[in-house]
């Protein structure tokens, strides 16, 4: 019987190790800023879903567009209704891979620069992107940070004639996630 218990414990250990390669969060943060001549646009989303597989270097993000909070409620309404059309396209997603994964050891605490390539889908339009990010491994989990620019026109988001040229064509996106081992949530 003692043997049996040992086998059982070993099995469980193996099973939990298998899951420890995946890190997830449900409350990552994504913000965007754009500083146009007419309107400064700023919005924050703190309910970002994200996951990483440290073994394969795969990354995934899923962002509910309606969770972006704007300072002006009217702007938030227009963002959802007219710009990104949240009823038709409720989520923005990113599927990607760390291309320099061999340089990152997720089992050793420290800060690592990562090259990330993948497909970003906003407003139903998918574009290939490659950006840089930072992973900080600590006992708490894996912290991921990135800052990059997105061209509004690339994602078929139309700007009304009256404000063309008055709001910026590129927006700065800041990503900030704290990933925890799957199962520890």
């Amino acid at each position, binding site marked *: 019987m003692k043997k*049996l218990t040992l086998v059982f414990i070993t*099995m469980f250990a193996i*099973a939990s190790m298998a899951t420890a390669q995946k890190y997830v969060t449900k409350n990552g943060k994504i913000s965007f800023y754009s500083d146009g001549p007419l309107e400064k646009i700023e919005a924050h989303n703190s309910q970002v*879903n994200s996951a990483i597989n440290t073994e394969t270097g795969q990354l995934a993000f899923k962002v509910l567009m309606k969770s972006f909070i704007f*300072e002006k409620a009217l702007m938030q309404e227009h963002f959802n209704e*007219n710009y990104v059309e949240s009823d038709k396209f409720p989520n923005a997603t990113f599927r990607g891979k760390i291309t320099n994964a061999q340089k990152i050891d997720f089992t050793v605490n420290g800060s690592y620069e990562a090259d990330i390539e993948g497909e970003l889908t906003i407003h139903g339009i998918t574009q290939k992107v490659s950006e840089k990010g930072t992973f900080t491994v600590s006992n708490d989990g894996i912290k991921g940070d990135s800052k990059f620019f997105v061209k509004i026109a690339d994602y078929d988001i139309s700007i*009304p004639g009256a404000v063309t040229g008055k709001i910026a064509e590129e927006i700065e996106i800041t990503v900030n996630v704290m990933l925890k081992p799957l199962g520890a949530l």
Partner: protein
Amino acid sequence: MNTKQLIKLCWLTVCFIAITSVTNAQDDLMDLLNDEPATTYTYSTFKTTRISLGQSVENPANGNLVFDIQHHFGRINEGAYEFFGLDQATLRLGLQYGITDWLSVGIGRSSFEKTYDGSVKAKILRQSKGEINMPVSISYFGNIGINTLKFDDTLRTNYFSSRLSFTNQLLIARKFSNAVSLQLTPTFIHRNLVEREIDDNDVWALGAGGRFKLSNRVSLNLEYYYILSKQTSKDFQDSFTIGFDIETGGHVFQLFLTNSRGIIEQHFIARTTGDWLKGDIHFGFNISRTFVLIKPKEFRDNN
């Protein structure tokens, strides 16, 4: 190892395989991220807190102060001498404030009989899908109007209460699609003092309104109030309005044609005298400016 233990071991192995295969099934990381909210609430059934003249189920957002400027010009059929009505105007200036996401209050002053008004609007139900399935949004709107004209007859005893009139409305709306929203508005108006003995102190009316989007930024709005009370329907016209919401970047302008001169509910629902068929049509507009008094919590720390 006896048979019993062997069976146990087999069973554990099956369990282990089951556990690991569950983990392996999540190979696509996206599958880990299926986290749709249980209930999704409908938003922007109408673009502003008014369909055109009357109230819509929308409230000012929590912490937002809205300054309203409302104009109804004179009648178009008054001709070139009155510049098709533009020489005269009824004006209302108002403020609305969102105390919470479901409760707002407002004050205003209308040039029609120098009337001050105070109002409250509360959301009772919100249209939603998912775990909570609700086909309509329902709000309550109530106001008090205070007429501040000098009393006609200074010889009799005049009471302050004679200046008061009240509106109670249920706003029942459904956003059928991105383009079409409709609203029914049962209305009860009470006036403390009316001109003649046969006039109704209590006026019942049923309003119906809708917005039809012509594009993402322009919508056609229709509004009609059917007077149910007998004497009032004999003496006055039902209010009918055709309007457009035009959104330009950050603001919404409402332009409309109506047979009503009055701007607050007790005036345009119960005391409209213009007849569309005779050309008694007023051009009018609403413009508003929103001030964010209390920022959403995401913005409080950074700025």
